[in-house]
């Protein structure tokens, strides 16, 4: 099975103290460390496991610039067969639809049976998977938390409210957005990354994938970020000040008082 995983590099929320920049237009990016978006990492792991079960290839693709090669390198070390960077000046400032359009153009250049995305990017809006499927006219299932491969079909399970699950059958080719927790992604150490240090990662521009430059990037974006701020403390919020133990006790009391503990 030919599997494509769309991945994205995001600021690692567990290793950064996210602050808004002075202009209020973005987060402070000096000294920020990045990693692959967590859900995308699960998607790559799932792709690798499917490949190892039924054969085929796993390609990881991202839209970005040369800095984003870092995550592609990591996914190659994880075991992906190829990685492709979609990079063009005209791509910058794309909204979700723009990213989906770039990816859709790339997909149409190749032959993929299955396209996986993470359920949502840490700094995104869970838009790309669905839009990509629509643009390709492929069936789409979101929030997948298990995948079984059948003949020309997949059985995909997803979690619904209250921890229940539903199983859907979906025809190939299709797009799935992958929920974290679907598997246990393997570890990639420095050694693994060094071993793939010289594997070439092709960079394709707008012309290479045949995407209409006016439909992507700033030019094509129909959703624009206008502000970026830390929400002011509203009335309902209460900040506990005290030692860890005192805070824990207070939380317990508060939850009990609101009827959360019976």
């Amino acid at each position, binding site marked *: 099975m030919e599997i494509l995983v769309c991945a994205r590099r995001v600021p*690692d929320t*567990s*290793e*950064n*103290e996210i602050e808004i920049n002075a202009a209020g237009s973005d987060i402070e990016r000096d*000294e920020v*460390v990045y*990693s692959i978006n967590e859900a995308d990492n699960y998607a790559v792991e799932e792709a690798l496991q499917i490949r190892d079960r039924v054969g085929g290839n796993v390609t990881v693709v991202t839209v970005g610039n040369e800095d984003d090669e870092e995550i592609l390198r990591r996914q190659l070390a*994880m*075991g992906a067969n190829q990685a492709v960077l979609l990079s063009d000046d005209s791509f910058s400032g794309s909204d979700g639809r723009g990213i989906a359009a770039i990816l859709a153009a790339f997909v149409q250049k190749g032959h993929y049976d299955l396209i996986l995305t993470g359920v949502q990017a840490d700094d995104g809006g869970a838009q790309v998977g669905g839009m990509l499927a629509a643009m390709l006219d492929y069936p789409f299932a979101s929030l997948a938390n298990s995948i079984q491969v059948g003949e020309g079909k997949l059985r995909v399970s997803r979690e619904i409210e209250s921890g229940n699950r539903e199983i859907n059958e979906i025809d190939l080719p299709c797009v799935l957005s992958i929920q974290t927790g679907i598997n*246990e*992604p*393997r*570890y*990639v*150490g*420095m*050694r*693994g990354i*060094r*071993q793939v240090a010289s594997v070439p990662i092709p960079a394709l521009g707008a012309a290479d994938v045949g995407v209409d430059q006016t439909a992507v990037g700033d030019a094509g974006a129909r959703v624009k970020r206008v502000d970026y701020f830390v929400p002011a403390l509203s009335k309902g919020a209460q900040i506990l000040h005290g030692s860890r133990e005192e805070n824990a006790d207070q939380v317990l009391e508060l939850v009990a008082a609101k009827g959360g503990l019976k």
Partner: protein
Amino acid sequence: MDLPAQITDWLVAGRPLFLTIHVVGVACFAYIVTRRLVPLLHAQRDFRFDRPLTRLGKVLKFWLGQWKHPRYKFAGAFHILVFAGFLLLAARAFTVLIVGVSENFVMPGLSGKTGQVYDIVTDYAATVVFLCMVVLAVRRLVFKPARYAVPAKYGQGHAADAVFLLGLIAVLMVADSLFAASTAAAHAQHDQPTETLAVLSLPWMLKALLAAMPLTTLREINATAYLVHEVTFYFLLCYRPFGIQFHVETSLFSIYFAKLDRGTVKPVQWGVPDEKLDQVKSFGVKTFEDFTWKHMLDFYSCADCGRCADQCPANAAGRPLAPRFLNIKARDYAFQHYPVLGKAHNHEPLIGTIYSEDEIWSCTTCGACEAECPLLVEYIDKIVDLRRGMIDDGNVPQSLQKPLKALESRGNPYGKMEKKRADWAKSEGLQQDCGLKILDGKNGATTLYFVDSITSFDDRMQSIGRATARILGEIGENFGILGSAEKDSGHEVRRFGEEMLFLALRDHNTDSIRESGVKRIVTSDPHAYNALKHDYKDVPPVEHISQVIAREVKASNLQFRPVEGGNVYAYHDPCYLGRHNEVYDDPRSVLDAIPGLKRVEMKRSRDRSFCCGGGGLMLFYEPKEEQRMGVLRVRMASDAGANVIVTACPFCMANIEDAIKVAGMEGKMTVMDLTELVDQQIVHQARKEESVTATCGG
């Protein structure tokens, strides 16, 4: 032995038979041992041929001297008796065997008076060994010491095999004694000069029983005893390589080739320098053949005595790890996959077959097993090698992946910003009053305080950092910290098998330390201490803060005010300060220098200290366990009558502090770091007189 023809004529008649048994016995043994050596030839390299004198010293102390055996008094005493008996009886056994092909053979050096003395000594030796076998068999069958028990998941118990072996040795002793007794009885009947049998020895008693028997019966007994002796001897010889008794043959080699350098971890591959590691195809132990030959020898040598597991804190806490089964399972694997008869079939993965992932991650590398093993079997290096294999395959628990990634990108397992590493030092006037400098190129100092991650970033442990800084200030040290230029020492990174990440951290820190121009290093973290001392190269000498304080106390440079409150203190030895580096007395001497401080020892202290739960990455690992090691440890302190545990390691502090809460002993037990206690009790010296208002004592 000058034997009368009447009783020993069968020796000549039976010679072809005895000779055949000799040849068959020796050939079988040689064949079996050769087959046992086959996996060692497929194993990884291991450089154990250096420092022959040190190694001989180990043999004298641990093999001939049985140094570790008395740590278990009963079993140890019996082992020493049996071992001594075997050594003494070796010449006698060979003499008896050779008599079968040369009836008048006497071992050179054992004729005449010496021979008589030797015969008496060995009469007793055989008796003692026989009695030991009886006692040990009763112990195995009736008293069943808990540490020999085999949990169901590890297969059947080993008692039957143990008793069978004890029985074989007992038969050997009886046959040998009966042979001597019947010979002597026959001699006595014929007024021939008889051997003096040792009074009350087994041969002596048997002789008394046989004294009145007719010569023909004696002759039959004599011949039968000989044959039984010979057959049992060879059977035992050839049977030993199939079980725990193989250590009789292998222990000498295991101990000669034992690891000499404490606190270190074996290289990924012997003979491959760090800079060439990129060329190594596979890291760590994935299949049996990835072990080194010495580690395979360990598997053969393990006598299944259970002392390692008995001392192992992971085992005590109900984690799925008992060190002895690392050996037993690997040995069984070797026996099965490299059979004595038939073809070897090998190269199967070990994880998921004989070892489980949880088993291998359960180890805190505390070293209690290695401190206990009478045969100096190595465990930590094997655990680390198995982890290297899992890391290389990407097989790492999710709970460890985040801290490892953070160590890679941020240099600490918490994912905190590098620039905040020295934030703890910017409060309480440490820089102004204690002379704490941040060595960022503008400042220089003689002494580096290597803080390491937990003390830098953990709110609670920062108190250890501040106490250490105040103590260093108090003794007038010209010192500083690296601040954002310091990264995690990588001590646990290496011990969790992530060698490349460790090397990156080490190289970074080495450069930072060398650039700072310091002449020596002090740390309050035993893990950093061990790393800097044993894992790093080309850095200035390092000391743990307890050593520094002890020296200053001895030189009367530090005085303490008396402790109040009638507390009873127990010192908990951190594994990497105590067992791995043998710093036991310095922290204790500091405690004892504090007036009025009442100190008790926990039963498990010094090299038998019980690990708190492990440091570094172990704080992130979520083990499968029945209870926390720390809780067990806190109870031990309570049992010793203490209500304050003093330790000298931030990880011990973290684990024990949590354990006090989990055990519900808040208010009854507290834990503090040695530096915190010292800082609290210090009487500030005249050195600060010029700036009384700003004493470093805070």
